[in-house]
Every structure is written in C-alpha cells, then in structure tokens.
C-alpha cells in the first residue's frame, strides 16, 4: 500500500489540504489530553483512542456535507471532530458536565450531535450500522441527495448487522457508504484470527456493490475513495463498502496496565506510517504548510484544546435530580 503517484497529487486546493491536516491534529491532541485527564481521574469510565487512524475519519468526512449523516463506534472522538463537533461540548461531556453534548449522561462512548449529522458514538460493536442504514433510508426518502456513512471496525464486520444492512442497502440502493476501519485488531484479538480473508472489502461482491481497499493512513487515498462512493450514493447508485487498512497506535483503551498482545515491532512500523506526519511532510514538500509551518499550526490547535478543557473545568456538574430527566420526550 505504498503511496501511488495519483494519491500524491490530489486535485484539492492547498487550504483544503491544510484543513485536513488541522482536523487530524485536533483529533490527535484532543485524545492525548483526554487520555492524560482520564489517567488523572478527571475523565471517568473508559476512553478509546483513535490515534493513528485520523486519516480515515477526516478523509471521509471531507467528502461530506454538514447535512449528511454519520454514525460512529466506541472509538468515536475522531468521527465527531471530523464531522465538525464542538470541542468544548465534547470535552465537557468527557468531564461529565451539564454543558456536555449529552448533559453528562453519555460520556466518551455516547457523544452525539444530531444537528451536524453525527448520530452518535456507540458502545455496541456493530451497533451503529443499522442506525445509519435507517438514516440512509431517510435520506433516500427525503430526495435531497443526502448521504449516510457508517464507520465500524474490522471486528464489527463479523457481526450480523453488517450483513443484514449491506444486503438491505444494496437491495434498496440506499445512499450509504460503509467504511470499515480495519486496524487489524479487535481488542486483544487479531483480525487474522477471526477473518477467513484478509480483506473485508471482498464481501462487497456478494451484495453486488463496489468494495475498495485503501491505505487508511494515506488521507488522499481515503478521500478519493470516499468521493467516489459518496458521488455514487448521491446520484442514486446505491451503497459502497470501503475498507481502510490502518492501525491503532495505542492499546485498546487508556486504562492502566491493560494487556496488549500486539508485536511491538508491528506497532512501531505503523507509527512510522503516521497519517499526520505523512500529510505534514507532503504539504511541506508542496510548500503548502505556510511560513509558520507545522509548529504554528500545532500551537493553534493546542490552544483550542486548552480552551475546551477550560470550558469543561468551568462547567457545572449536573444536579443529582437531573438523573431522572430525559427519560421520555414530551
């Protein structure tokens, strides 16, 4: 999956490429901070980091409109940020505050922002696939050219809803793009041990839909594949499956002393293909990183993260009696 000439020269304006770099960097810095604050006891429950896979969420969402809808997984920060979620309300949710996206009821595994078409992180593996397929049906019935995107892992691709939904979407030509983030591990179990074939994309043919395998750490490769699939969906061509080969640079969760059976050599090798470094090097080579360069961008991003933390810290916790609220809508 070395970079093809084609993906080295995308027809994307430099500003757009810089935006993509910034979005990936925001995800990276947001999660580094979330992890630190989790270990410091300021964030509770569990935190799953997307670090190393940023090119997938950003490359795909760059092909979407705000009105398009996506659904995420237990590893959801990257998808939220890529779709345009507010960092303050995200961080406040992790901090369990009343100003968070879910008023402190959801936490890391349940951040959602329906206003920007982010239909939620989801703690159930494959839990989001049927939800977003329903959003795809809604988009088809709305007849506004809307598209729905399902992000899910290699592990999720072995669960029943993957099959049921791809078949329905294919039969009804729903405008859904199924994006498998194949980071080659499901918690402590390797994809090699649970998939008969290395490529999840090979399953697409059984439903008569396109299946593409792309380098998930090459944001332009991801973006181009996403553009093709989104175009097809918008124009009534039906669903597609895109498999992004990528890798989780950290353990399954940020909990201390967690087992990580992965070969350190494998982990290091993938860190060498870091999607952010890759794009930064390219922009530099293209002379598009701007005079101030990467460091300036990074400082600006760190500022936004600091602001989000400050917002969260300054926000009140919910009142105990609010535990009884939001049960049923009026």
């Amino acid at each position, binding site marked *: 999956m070395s970079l093809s000439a084609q993906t080295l020269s995308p027809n994307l304006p430099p500003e757009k490429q810089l935006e993509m770099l910034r979005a990936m960097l925001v995800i990276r810095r947001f999660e580094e901070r979330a992890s630190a604050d989790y270990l410091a006891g300021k964030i509770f429950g569990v935190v799953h980091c997307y670090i190393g896979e940023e090119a997938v969420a950003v490359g795909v969402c760059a092909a979407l409109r705000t009105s398009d*809808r996506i659904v995420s997984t237990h590893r959801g920060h990257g998808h939220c940020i890529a779709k345009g979620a507010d960092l303050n309300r995200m961080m406040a949710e992790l901090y369990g505050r009343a100003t968070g996206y879910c008023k402190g009821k959801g936490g890391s595994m349940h951040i959602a922002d329906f206003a920007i078409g982010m239909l939620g992180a989801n703690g159930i593996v494959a839990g989001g696939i049927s*939800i977003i397929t329903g959003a795809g049906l809604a988009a088809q019935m709305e007849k506004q050219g809307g598209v729905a995107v399902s992000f899910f892992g290699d592990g999720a691709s072995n669960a029943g*809803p993957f099959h049921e939904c791809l*078949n*329905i979407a294919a039969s009804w030509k729903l405008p859904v793009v199924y994006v498998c983030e194949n980071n080659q591990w499901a918690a402590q179990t390797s994809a090699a041990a649970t998939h008969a074939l290395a490529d999840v994309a090979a399953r697409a043919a059984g439903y008569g839909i396109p299946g593409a395998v792309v380098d998930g750490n090459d944001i332009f490769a991801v973006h181009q594949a996403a553009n093709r699939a989104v175009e097809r969906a918008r124009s009534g061509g039906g669903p597609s499956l895109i498999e992004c080969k990528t890798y989780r640079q950290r353990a399954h969760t940020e909990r201390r002393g967690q087992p990580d059976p992965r070969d350190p050599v494998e982990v290091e090798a993938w860190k060498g293909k870091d999607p952010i470094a890759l794009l930064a090097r390219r922009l530099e080579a293209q002379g598009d990183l701007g005079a101030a360069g990467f460091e300036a961008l990074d400082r600006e991003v760190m500022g936004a993260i600091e602001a989000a933390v400050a917002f969260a810290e300054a926000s009140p916790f919910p009142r105990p009696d609010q535990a009884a609220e939001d049960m049923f809508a009026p």
Partner: protein
Amino acid sequence: MRELTYNEAAVEAVAEEMRRDPRIFYMSTDPIPPLFKEFGPERIRATPIAEAALTGMAIGAAGSGFRPIVDWRQVTFCFVAMDQIVNQASKIHYMFGGQVTFPILYRAAVGGGTQLAAQHSQSPYSMFMNLAGLKMFLPSTPYDIKGLLKTAIRDNNPVISFESNRLMGRRGPVPEEEYAIPLGLADVKREGNDVTVVALAWLVHEALAAAEELAKEGISAEIVDPRTLVPLDAATIRASVQKTGRLVIADEAGPTAGFAAEVAAIATEDQATFARLQAPPKRVCALQVPIPYSPILEKEVFPDRTRIIAGIREVLGGRGSAAA
C-alpha cells in the same frame, strides 16, 4: 355503534395516522395487504428477514425526522433485534441527553392458544417492562387498541404495541369518529366490591366471564384492565384494591418476575393499600414453562376463567383461610 375486529381496528388506526402524517412509514417482513394497497411499496415496505436491521433502521430514520413503524409480527421475532431494543432504542434518548426525539412504533403479537408451540406462543412483555426507557401497552378490545395505537403513533418516543393473538378476530364497538386513548390510563371494565381482578388482554374477557359466574352467588368482582404496561396506572389499581380489600392478578404469561409480580408489589408496598388488604394477593398465571404443542398440554399451561374463579374463591377465604 359500528363493530370491528381487534385486528381491523389496529389496521384502521395505522391507516388513519399514515393519511395524516407523510413522515410515517411501515416496515415488516410481509406487508399487510390493505395497507400495502393504499400506501404502496414506498411507505409499506416488505423487507428481508432481518428484524435486527429493521429495528435499528427505525432508530436512525426517527432520528432523521421520520416516524417509522416496525411490525415484528410475532413477538418471538423481535428477539433477534434485542440489542437494538435494549441497548439502543430504550436508551438513546436518555443517553444522548435528550437532544432529539425518536418517535417509533414497534408492533408485536403475543400469546398462545393456537398450538404453535414454544417459539410462537410467547408473552414476554414483562421483560420489556423491566427495561427502563420504553413505553408499552397490551389492549383487550378493538376500541382500546385503536385508541392506544393512535396515541402511540403520535408519541415522540419508542412505544411497543403488544397485541393479543387470541383477540385478533374478536369484534367490538369502534366509533367512526376520531378518538385517542392516553397511555398510562387503566380502564375498569366492570365495577365490583368484593375482589379486584387485574387482568390483561384475553384474560380480561375470561375475568369478565368469571365475574358473571360469581355474580350469581352474590360475589361482586371488579375487573381492572391496565391496558398500558408502561407507564402502569398504579393509582387505579391501588384505589380498587383499597375498595375491595382483595386482589387477583390474571396474566397469560408466567408469574416469575413478571407483570403479575409487579402488580402484587405496587399493591402491597403502598401503605394505604397494604393496610386494607384482607388476603394475600393471588397470581393466576401460566405455568412457568415453555408453551407445549399438544392441545391437552397447552390448555393445562394457560390460566382461564375457571382458574380465575378458583383464585377469587381463594382470596375470599381471606386471611384466616388455609395457606395459599
């Protein structure tokens, strides 16, 4: 007044609401012919046998501004979709801080009596009652099912309509005029003074027959039909028991950790009701077994008017009587 069957009344409720609101659409593995005929394949969707997908798709469509109806048909078939029910539909509004609404109607036929054996004769609504976050009802008459379905379809939350297999063909008066029945309101189907019988669906009719029978002996039974399971109308049940001092609960489901146990608990845990209770509450339920096929066995498993009468006689024996 005009008479319709329980099933006709249900279909009429769906059709009326679908005419009123274009955002409503319907998914099931086999479409209901009259609905399909009137609304066509776009709004009445014949689906693959993939209830898990349908149940989850309804959540996504509802979160996107539509008002889906998913007809699981036999409740049995919703267990393949239990993740979407338990982990998604029942929690998504609360877990996301109430940021959007999920107006969804799920329909499920329950109960036995037709020798369809263990997998196709189930009454598992209590499992859903135990789960926080879903509204649900189980009507006993054509009038009630139409009125409750209309309310449910207009509700902005996931609601499950449990519908009795035994009652599908049963006729009853249904006015031509528009009406709706609020969720959470029990209906006293017969007034009485000596004993309260809280019954569901088909057993409401068995209880009414039992009451007729006992009236001849001068025993006056009050029949309370909760109709809605969540929210349950505890006030009406407690008021009735406070009046009669005796409680029998009749349910086609097994007793364990079920609707009948809940009714016994809400009656006895209430100080005012407990103080007036003259005898132990009595659960008249199915045997706690899967439903067998052979008619002799099936009949043995289900409660009926005869067992309701025996239950009433037992509680009328009162505190002093032989152990239950």
